[in-house]
């Protein structure tokens, strides 16, 4: 009987030890100095991988129906995010300031429309995001190329993307709705529509500059992280003080690749 109790106590202690080791290894720790870069991002749904598999595999075709718990995850942007993670977040270079840059997912969508006549319309959605490692609020205007047959309405067409560094702020990525209406009966054939980003209007930028300046930023955390990489408190103090709450007109640096290509075949 005594031996049995001893064995039970032994097993109990071993169990506690395994649980403790598991806790130490598996539970991510956040020290007082460590920034939680993803605090504003909703919890990732546990079927996230299944959804992204279907979305980018073509099984789930209506991007407008996808809820923000999915598209607000950096992982939603696939290898784009994987490429950026090491570059900008694991070993950030505080001597450089990510000022410009943007991306859009998906890059290209193709549709076939049958029986599409004057006045008919359909909607699609896309996800426009600030560049990874960018610590500015970037204003953009989204525009479509002129087309004889299609009227294209983009909502929102003027917007500000929030920073993705040092933390992902609300609004770092946004769902864009594109409504396409036939201006007239469209002859059969293939048509290419292009969506691009340019700088927003001067008045928009003026208002956004004021709005961004009124924001509250917990920059002490950023200074601590900067110091942990540059080991120069004065320089970090100066850098962070000059970088915080900065609005810039995006679209200054352009990719010749359009933000989104839409291929439409009329039958």
């Amino acid at each position, binding site marked *: 009987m005594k031996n049995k109790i001893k064995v039970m106590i032994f097993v109990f202690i071993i169990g506690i030890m395994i649980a403790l080791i598991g806790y130490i290894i598996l539970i991510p720790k956040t020290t007082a100095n460590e920034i939680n870069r993803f605090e504003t991002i909703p919890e990732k749904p546990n079927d996230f991988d299944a959804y992204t598999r279907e979305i*980018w595999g073509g099984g789930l075709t*209506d991007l407008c129906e996808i809820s923000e718990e999915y598209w607000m995850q950096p992982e939603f942007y696939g290898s784009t995010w994987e490429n950026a993670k090491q570059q900008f977040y694991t070993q950030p270079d505080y001597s450089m300031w990510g000022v410009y840059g943007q991306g859009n997912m998906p890059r290209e969508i193709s549709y076939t*429309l049958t029986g599409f006549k004057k006045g008919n319309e359909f909607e699609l959605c896309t996800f426009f995001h600030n560049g990874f490692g960018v610590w500015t609020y970037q204003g953009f205007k989204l525009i479509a190329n002129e087309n004889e047959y299609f009227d294209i309405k983009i909502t929102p067409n003027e917007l500000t993307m929030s920073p993705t560094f040092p933390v992902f702020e609300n609004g770092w990525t946004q769902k864009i709705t594109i409504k396409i209406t036939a201006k007239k009966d469209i002859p059969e054939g293939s048509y290419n529509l292009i969506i691009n980003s340019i700088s927003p209007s001067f008045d928009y930028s003026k208002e956004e500059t004021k709005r961004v300046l009124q924001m509250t930023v917990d920059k002490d955390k950023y200074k601590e992280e900067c110091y942990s990489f540059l080991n120069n408190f004065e320089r970090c103090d100066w850098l962070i003080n000059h970088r915080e709450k900065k609005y810039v007109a995006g679209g200054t640096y352009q990719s010749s*690749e359009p933000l989104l290509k839409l291929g439409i075949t009329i039958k």
Partner: protein
Amino acid sequence: MNRKILVILTGLMFMFGMAGVYAYDSSSPYTVTMNFIVGEDTSFTVALAGIETTIDFNPATANSKEVEPDSQDDGGSTPIETITNTGNVNLALTHELNVTTDFVDVSYNTANTVDWTKILNSTTSSINASVPSSETVDVYMWANFTAADSGTTAVLYQINSTTA
């Protein structure tokens, strides 16, 4: 993410089965079918040195030579800008100015040494013919001034990228 292509199936039953893909109005029936979606993007990030959001040259005199832009430090290997291809296709990067200014010559290099065979002006010039995904390109600049005008002269600098 690899390029994904979904080949269209034109069977009527299949199209009707794709909820949310088609729209239908009895007075004006039509169908919308997605053929394919390319789940990738050509995103990029441009980082500037220090606290710069523009590239500013401040010559000490009207004839200063090999002036570095503010915050660039070629001796310390700090470029004025780094361009990172965060997308998932190779990019060819070029740059240019919208006008050529007669009192200043600007050279550029992806290394921290001056190379006056690489001139930045209103003619498009190559930064790198093929930047792979997740790679970064540094850009250093220097300016030679000759009887420069006083005051501020603003010139638009543009980076272009195409898939390589």
